[in-house]
């Protein structure tokens, strides 16, 4: 057992994946000597060489487009997008090529590719460095989308994503990279990649989230417990496919749900989750599923980002409102 941060866990997971399978490549801007601007690929080029840890020209479409060709040649590219806001130049390659090649070729071509994106806000950065683009990828058939919320998940999920034969958009909550340490047991058996997880059981309402929001939700549940309110918390972990089984079960029990994310509320994951819960648990619902999200504005300047981001208070406010129905 070692105590590791999310950043370290991801680094260890990548290293493990590269050791396990010589076809695994890492590509991106500054992933080599620098080890990436967040140091997630630290030391990998030194140990695996420039052929496997590839500093790319500064062109995101180029990174993803060449990764497609490498995948066709039998490699398993892990592409790093430096910040969430810089994935859009590669958007066409991702949604029209990466996502569709398996379908287009009726399975003749697989796209075992991981697109790592440090995402979300709260780090005091300038524009384009705090985006939450998950809904756009989850809306795209052919892609799978996951997000880890803690070091242990980070370690396992990145390996599972790399080993998986479909393209996986892997969202890393950058605010959590160095936030906490957790005990990592490298001998453990991880849960399946595409599964959600009940982190805390409760009976009054269900809190749903992923990535950077999970910590906030746990704190909210903690705070609510102090006031005698029992909240269940689910870390969704996988955004496409969604693993709604545990969610439905929970909501059928609590009758109430609040879903939270940093992404804009309008057409964010919360909309889909609310719609599905309502479709499947209609008679169990005591209140509409409420959403706590980033506002429907561009991400604001850093000095007011904490106002923009859903926090413990806004989550509890939503819980209050749902209890009021």
């Amino acid at each position, binding site marked *: 057992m070692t105590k590791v941060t999310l950043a370290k866990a991801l680094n260890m997971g990548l290293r493990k994946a590269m050791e396990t399978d010589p076809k695994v*490549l890492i590509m991106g801007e500054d992933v080599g000597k620098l080890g990436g601007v967040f140091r997630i690929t630290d030391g990998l080029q030194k140990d695996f060489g420039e*052929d*496997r840890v*590839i500093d*790319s*020209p500064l*062109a995101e*479409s*180029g990174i*993803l*487009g*060449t*990764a*497609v*060709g*490498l*995948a*066709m*040649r*039998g*490699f398993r590219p892990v592409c790093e997008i430096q910040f969430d806001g810089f994935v859009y*130049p590669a958007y*066409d*390659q991702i949604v*029209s*090529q990466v996502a569709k*090649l*398996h*379908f*287009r*070729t*009726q*399975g*003749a*071509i*697989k796209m*075992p590719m991981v697109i790592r994106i440090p995402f979300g806000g709260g780090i005091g950065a300038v524009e384009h460095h705090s985006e939450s683009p998950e809904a756009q990828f989850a809306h795209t*058939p*052919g892609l*799978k989308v996951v997000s880890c919320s803690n070091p242990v998940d980070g370690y396992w999920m990145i390996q599972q994503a790399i080993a*998986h*034969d*479909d393209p996986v958009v892997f969202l890393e909550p950058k605010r959590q990279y160095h936030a906490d340490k957790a005990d990592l047991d490298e001998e453990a058996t991880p849960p399946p990649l*595409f599964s959600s997880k009940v982190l805390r059981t409760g009976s009054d309402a269900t809190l749903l989230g992923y990535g950077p929001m999970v910590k906030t939700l746990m704190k909210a549940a903690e705070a609510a417990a102090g006031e005698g309110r029992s909240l269940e918390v689910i870390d969704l972990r996988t955004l496409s*496919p*969604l*693993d*709604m089984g545990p969610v439905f079960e929970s909501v059928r029990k609590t009758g109430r749900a609040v879903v939270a994310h940093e992404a804009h509320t309008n057409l964010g994951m919360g909309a889909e989750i609310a719609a599905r819960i309502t479709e499947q648990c209609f008679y169990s619902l005591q209140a509409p599923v409420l959403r706590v999200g980033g506002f429907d504005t561009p991400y604001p300047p850093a000095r007011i980002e904490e106002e923009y981001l859903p926090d413990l208070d806004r989550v509890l406010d939503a819980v209050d409102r749902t209890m009021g129905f």
Partner: protein
Amino acid sequence: MTEYLVPRAEGDVQYVQLLTPEGYRVEHPDYAFDGGEDEAGTIRGFYRDMVLTRRIDTESTALQRHGELGIWAQLLGQEAAQIGSGRALRPQDYVFPTYREHGVAYCRGLDPLRLLGLFRGVDQGAWDPHVNNFANYTIVIGAQTLHATGYAMGVQRDGAVGTGDADRDTAVVAYFGDGASSQGDVNESFIFAASYNAPVVFFCQNNQWAISEPIERQSRIPLYQRARGFGFPGVRVDGNDVLAVHAVTQAALQYAREGNGPTLVEAYTYRMGAHTTTDDPTRYRLTDEVEYWKLRDPIARVKVYLTRNGLADHDFFEDVEREAEELGARLRDGCRALPDPSPLSIFDQVYAEQTPELEAQRDEFAAYLDSFEGAH
């Protein structure tokens, strides 16, 4: 826009040519045609390839007119560019085409019926690319040039370049059009290929038009010169001269296989037909231009050359014609016989590993379809 009134390629176009439109062989200081031991046989082969390719094209155009295809992207006039380059490939080489490389597909041994499947709408061009080392047609302009470059980077990583082993050293070809040269992706592929010195040949068929837009909208200098800006060689070849295209492509491929990196080949040719069967070129170009290019037909000049030099007789031409007829008949029958996909199949091909939620959606839809069965 009178500036396009004068047929392009008149006099001032500098390119590699080895067989004139009148069917005379000419010399070039840098490139010579290598037809192997039986040169005449090779050239007869090219002739046959081009005729059959043209037949695939005209037959498919006709099939579209008869409502059997939704659309067809014609290659009429580009046969030499495609056969000359396609026949320069070795088995281990790998091709990334656009949506118009029917002649290259044919060279790679892909059954033309597979192409028809795409244009008929029974599939999306779902051949296994690894069978013929011929990637799937790509419709988003330029995207495939990056795939080719990445594949070539993979070839490097597999040590399949510069070994001197003729059966191992591998080149990759990215086909694209003159219009495509404006896309960011194409230029990024030049950058990646140059940066990693990847074994890729960028083969641009400059057919003078991107739908209704003339090449002048995309570049004010000859396209092959684009390569100069990225630090690798570019060469323009008479794209209607199958011998020159073969020679130039072979050299570029060999250059790549030996580990010298990318080359841009601009095959200067002309799209004799419409952009696709839904296009109406009379809206934007003059018949004069088409007439001019008719005199430079890629097949006619080979026929003249073979005939004049007694390298092929009447029987040969008749045989090829008969073969083309047979091919046409096979396409007509085969096309009509292409089975429609099952609606449920679309759920099965989205992922390598099916998701439970999509499986559920499939089941729901299956039940819904069944409900109609019952109703009838």
